[in-house]
């Protein structure tokens, strides 16, 4: 009876933690969707009420993400789960949480600094945003695969690395266009700052993908 109870407890606790990890990864994807729409709204209408609404959503997602990460980490340690891979899983969650933070931080900066982005650069910013969001989405898929299907981690990881390179190309092209325009230097530097901030998402996603490849080798039997 006692043994049965222990075994049931082991598996029910595991299921709840699995759900938390899934929800946490959902939050990363959700933050990407909110970010993409917020940038589009900002480019069209500036720091409007709608944009602020998206910023509020991003902040809620970030808070929930933090809560989930802390709860998962506590559970992993308190119940000494996956002792051999715990450190890797924690690092993975921290890396993914960092992505949510960048999403939220970028929107905050835009809200505070209200960069004046000329129409001619809108397409470049939109393209860059879409690419980095796709890049983060593929690292989310790689992270999900790490938990369930390690054979697919490599596929999603390769896609992440490809999209990061694409984001770099778009960012470089956009910065060249900004600096070859007739805008004053301070505006050029302001616009470049946001290009770099958005591109940072792809760089961080790539870091997580690289680490995931190593964790996957360790996970292999």
């Amino acid at each position, binding site marked *: 009876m006692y043994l049965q109870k222990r075994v049931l407890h*082991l598996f029910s606790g*595991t299921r709840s933690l699995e759900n938390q990890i899934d929800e946490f990864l959902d939050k990363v994807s959700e933050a990407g969707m909110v970010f993409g729409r917020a940038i589009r709204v900002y480019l069209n209408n500036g720091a409007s009420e709608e944009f602020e609404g998206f910023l509020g959503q991003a902040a809620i997602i970030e808070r929930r993400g933090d809560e989930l990460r802390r709860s998962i980490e506590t559970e992993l340690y308190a119940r000494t789960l*996956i002792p*051999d891979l715990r450190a890797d*899983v924690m690092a993975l969650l921290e890396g993914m949480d960092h992505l949510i933070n960048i999403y939220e931080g970028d929107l905050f900066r835009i809200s505070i600094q209200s960069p004046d982005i000329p129409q001619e650069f809108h397409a470049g910013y939109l393209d860059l945003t879409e690419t980095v969001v796709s890049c983060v989405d593929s690292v989310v898929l790689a992270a999900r695969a790490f*938990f*369930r*299907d390690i054979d697919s981690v490599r596929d999603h990881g390769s896609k992440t690395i490809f999209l990061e390179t694409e984001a770099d190309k778009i960012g470089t092209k956009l910065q060249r266009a900004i600096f070859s325009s007739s805008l004053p230097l301070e505006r050029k530097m302001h616009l470049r700052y946001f290009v770099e901030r958005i591109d940072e998402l792809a760089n961080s996603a790539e870091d997580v993908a690289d680490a995931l490849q190593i964790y996957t080798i360790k996970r292999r*039997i």
Partner: protein
Amino acid sequence: MDLTVLFFLTSGLLLGWSLGANDAANIFGTAVGTRMVRFATAALVCSVFVVLGAVVSGAGAAHTLGALGSINALAGSFMAALSAAGTVYVMTKWGLPVSTSQAIVGAIIGWNLFSGSVTDSQTLLKIVATWVACPVLAALIAVPLLKVTAFALRLAKLHLLKLDAYTRLALILAGAFGAYSLGANNIANVMGVFVDVSPFKGFSVAGFFRLSSVQQLFLIGAIAIAVGVFTYSKRVMVTVGAGILPMSPVAAWVVVIAHSIVLFLFASQGLEHMLASAGLPTIPLVPVSSSQAVVGAVVGLGLMRGGGDVDWKLVGNIAGGWVTTPLISGVVCFIALFFLQNVFGQKVYREVHYSLSAPVLTELAAQGAEVTALASIKEREFRSAQEFKKAVEQTGYSGPPGEQALRDLAQLSHMYIDPEKFSSLDRKWLSSGQISAVERLEGREFAHPWQLARALAANSSEWSRKDNSTVNKYYNARLERKLEYVYRKFAGYSDRR
């Protein structure tokens, strides 16, 4: 029970304790060291299953050790177990991989040499062959098992956390199986040398099942192992766990299962009986080293990954241990027996005399032997098996029925079927048919045990041996134990002498 008897058993208990302290780490080391399983859980599961394995299935491997040499005095058994325990302790201190099985075999050979008994070379060869086979077999089991497990897990696509939960459960179950196999296989090392001198009497537990004297002996040996697990194995487990840390928990599970299967194969009477019944070749039941089974499995997995991780020095040390461990243990046992006998005045062996008496020669002739060559040593009494063997060799005789069977025929042990002893016969163990067969021999005397066995078989079919096949091995072994009991019971001469 006599206190000296208890004292003499302590060396076996010490050996059991060290086995529990060291070998439990082979089963649960990785699981506890990597914190997949808590020490308290591991120790409890390990202790319960070691006891079960020893009491339920321990007899098979013990029988083989008995065939190597039957130590027939309690003080001799004490010293054999103590020499083995000392050798294991010192070699562990020196950091050499040591096996309790090899130490006890060396000690038995040491006793054989000291007491002038003959070491059965066939049995010795069988035992040594299994030492080599044990790690090789563990490797051969571990590699495909890991491949199949990895393939199945890849198909199942379990969540990492679910896999973790299943692995914990699997490690506990594998540990239970490992502990059962360890108890079944290695109890022979701990208590095997006391089997022939067991001070216990069989009794029935609430009428449900009978706990024989050997099972009681194994029970206290297994309890000593369990005490070793609880008191000292934690440290060893953590060390082993740290040593094999680069292995994933699933690979660790594979190693434990491979180790347990090997130990089980070399201990299971049921499997041996099943194989023999199906006409298949059987696996000899021999106590093997659990540490070497684990190392074999780990090396197997290392070779599967290309062999770069394999510590060949350790492999060499193990192979060296096959020679050095029994050698050291044998020499220590021989010297210690000398001191125990000559300084402490203890009887470390009971002399067994041999003689080719007229009935023996008649029996040999009936078996088709050409006995004229043996005429020169007819009726001479030899004080040890070695002496007898040498004398037979000098006659140039090499005919049937073989060296061991010839010794069995010539063995002297005077018995008088004293009616006063009938009331003290164990009537729960012996059947009524067997008892009445004994009683019908009232007043008769026998010089050789086989004569009494034959007289009993003539009186009742319940005393008849079955054909010498593996299927009948345990029936015959049980009958042999009952005969030994009758021999001991009626040993001696009639008062009329």
